[in-house]
């Protein structure tokens, strides 16, 4: 059986020293090993940005696509081969700005894949512009007078979009994050995991220390029930989104693939594609 080391490759990440993304990468590698899959059974699909490079740093099939489109690529891949474990990954710009439309629809569609967002509240690779996750007043190169727009609230958006799995982690807490990703992979449906992954170069506000001071573990909230969407919403709002753990999980709702009429139990890649003469003639006859 594969260990987390088997999910390492020989590529040296080009992230800045201290970047939160290193821990996210490690957590994905550990989670993959923990759920008992082999590297060839995993595909990591990523977007564009610093975090988008992650698909190249994990020993698995990888697809580094175009900005904001990791989710459609990942969903197409999963539809083609339902036996593959598919993890989509990218930054907050990728998933909540240019790709927000796909994020909401992937959540409500509920195809059985896992989406890990590395949320650093800033655009790093383009050298420090505001992100939809930047707090109002946040000063960046593109908001020299402070961000005017309020920060986007991905957890609330996910909860109201019909998510069946919503979690949030913090890159420093690899143990908790690994458990969240494991739970996401095991979840039958779309699992959305937002991860605070600090940018040490361009975000001097939302630092490791800042998160340590402000985050609350849901495990520490007495009586928290993550099967209650209403409680999840209230708790997230009360804590201004600064919580970690499994925020909500619906284990009842079937995934998209289980609902598609006629959808093959076998991966589509395993079906013989040549149509029989009889089937063909039947189809032709319908036009006569």
């Amino acid at each position, binding site marked *: 059986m594969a260990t987390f080391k088997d999910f*390492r*490759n*020989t*590529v040296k990440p080009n992230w800045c020293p201290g970047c939160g993304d290193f821990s996210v990468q490690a957590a994905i590698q550990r989670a993959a090993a923990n759920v008992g899959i082999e*590297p*060839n*059974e995993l*595909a990591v*699909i990523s977007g564009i940005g610093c975090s988008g*490079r992650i*698909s*190249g740093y994990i*020993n*698995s*099939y*990888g*697809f*580094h*696509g*175009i900005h904001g*489109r990791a*989710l*459609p*690529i*990942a*969903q*197409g*891949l*999963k*539809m*083609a*081969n339902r*036996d*593959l474990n598919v993890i989509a990954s990218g930054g907050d710009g990728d998933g909540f700005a240019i790709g927000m*439309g*796909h994020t*909401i*629809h992937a959540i409500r*569609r509920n195809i059985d894949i896992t989406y890990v967002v590395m949320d650093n509240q800033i655009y790093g690779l383009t050298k420090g512009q505001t992100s939809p996750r930047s707090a109002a007043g946040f000063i960046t190169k593109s908001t020299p007078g402070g961000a005017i727009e309020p920060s986007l609230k991905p957890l609330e958006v996910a909860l109201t979009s019909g998510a069946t799995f919503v979690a949030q982690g913090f890159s420093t807490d690899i143990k908790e994050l690994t458990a969240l990703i494991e739970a996401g992979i095991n979840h039958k449906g779309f699992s959305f995991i937002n991860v605070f992954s600090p940018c040490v170069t361009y975000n001097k506000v939302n630092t490791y220390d800042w998160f340590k001071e402000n985050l609350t573990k849901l495990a520490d909230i007495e009586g928290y029930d993550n099967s209650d969407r209403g409680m999840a919403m209230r708790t997230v709002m009360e804590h201004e989104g600064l919580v970690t753990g499994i925020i909500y999980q619906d284990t009842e709702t079937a995934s998209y693939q289980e609902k*598609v*009429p*006629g*959808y*093959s139990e*076998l*991966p*589509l*890649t395993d*079906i013989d*594609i*040549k*149509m029989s*003469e009889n*089937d*063909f*003639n039947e*189809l*032709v006859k319908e*036009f*006569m």
Partner: protein
Amino acid sequence: MLHQLSWKVGGQQGEGIESTGEIFSTAMNRLGYFLYGYRHFSSRIKGGHTNNKITVRPTEVRSIADDLDILVAFDQETIDVNYKELTETGVILADSKFTPVKPEDSKAPLFVVPFTEVAAELGTSLMKNMVAIGATASLLNLEDEVFQNVVDDIFGKKGEEVVQKNMEAIARGHELMNELLGDRVGDWALAPADGKRRMFMIGNDAVALGALAAGTRFMAAYPITPASEIMEYLIKKLPKFGGAVIQTEDEIAAATMAIGANFGGVRAFTASAGPGLSLMMEALGLSGMTEQPLVVVDTQRGGPSTGLPTKQEQSDLMAMLYGTHGEIPKVVIAPSTMEEAFFDTIQAFNIAEELQLPVILMTDLQLSLGKQSVEPFDYNKIEIRRGKIVTGDIEEAADKAYFKRYEDTEDGISPRVLPGTMNGIHHVTGVEHDETGKPSEASGNRQVQMDKRFRKLAALKFDRPVHSNAPHEEADILLVGFNSTRGAIEEVQERLNAQGMKVNHAHIRLIHPFPSAEVAPLVAKAKKVIVVENNYTGQLANIMKMNVGGHDKIETITKYDGTPFLPGELENRVKELTR
């Protein structure tokens, strides 16, 4: 006795005009007649003038007829808009409900028939179209039984009584018209057909069936006119074959989802029209750069922007060829008949997988929605070629080295491993990359990979990239077109040759890479080259000039008013250019 009948029914959108045409033409098709139907419609659900013009012949029909023998009108607008198309012997049948008025300069007899009134008497005014079909049967001297099996097919589900009522409506219309016509009953009778059963389909049907026969098991698409029928057909049929269609949030998702599925190893595609094609441009580049197969169908309509969503145009050529930023190899195919639409769709999937690049299959609204009779497609001609997919065991590489998915091979085509395969792990990226898919900006590597990607095009095998009918060694004119203009051009070529001119015809089926070797000799043989296209700027003419020269003799006949070329007007315009 007529050797060709041109029949048109018109009225307000949403009042059954489409089904009137559908029932009449399906019955004629089943008698063995050849048909060509073209709908004029608007981008709204209810209201607005719509009509369905159907050309019927006992022999092959290639285009919409210039004129009209019978006009069936459910409102005054239908008469006012269309009466000028009527021939010397043409007639107008109009519903008494709107008290029809004949235009002053119309010579055609106007028969006022109580279509709606009779239908209402029989139970529901909805059946007015059946009464009109009965009236048509009188003009053509057709037995009502001709419509029985069509009515069975459409209304059988609703029970025997509904079928009966509809047949009764046809009979009443027939009787009423017999009385009005007196001894002119059957004056519009058509020469008998061969009774052979043929398919009767729109181009979108041919493309959708082609995709299914090619083995597609996944489609991602966003609804748009005039492409939606393709996804609707697959939504109906794919469950039987284990596949699925996802209606996506937009065309960007549609194209990228199809890329993801192709990466997985399934034949997947999307279909759209101009606005969707514009949104897919970055995805086309991704397909080209990552060498993932992708088939995109573009059913061209009037552009730019929202343009003329329900009208004919051929103005996306340049966008298809050059729309994505940067440079990628791609293939663009333009079928011009139902049969080509079917087989070219299969070819598109083969080429996309063999050369590992995006293939755009272009149609236009007239081809996509025009309904035609066609001989059943030959199952034995369906060929599936999947290219260099590695199926055997792969040896484990030392030190976790990735599989060389972008190996610099002689023909530029690298072996392709599907995700899930043992020891086939590799990385795919839209960033420039080395042989294993790792990002690399090194200039030497860049050159190797660019050369490799473009070298693949040399391996393209495309049977008959140009359809030509060039009987003249020294032609006065070479007429050139693509997609749905083929029928009108063929007809004009025939007429002009009969008048003593020497006219050759070339219809370009492979637009990109341009088949210069086939086209250049045809251009050389002609004194003048006239490129016929439904756009303003003469896009195909420009592509020809880029590839085969001939600047001094290439001229264009363009049309961009949203309507298709009719043979008569094209004939006149060719003559104007050669005067």
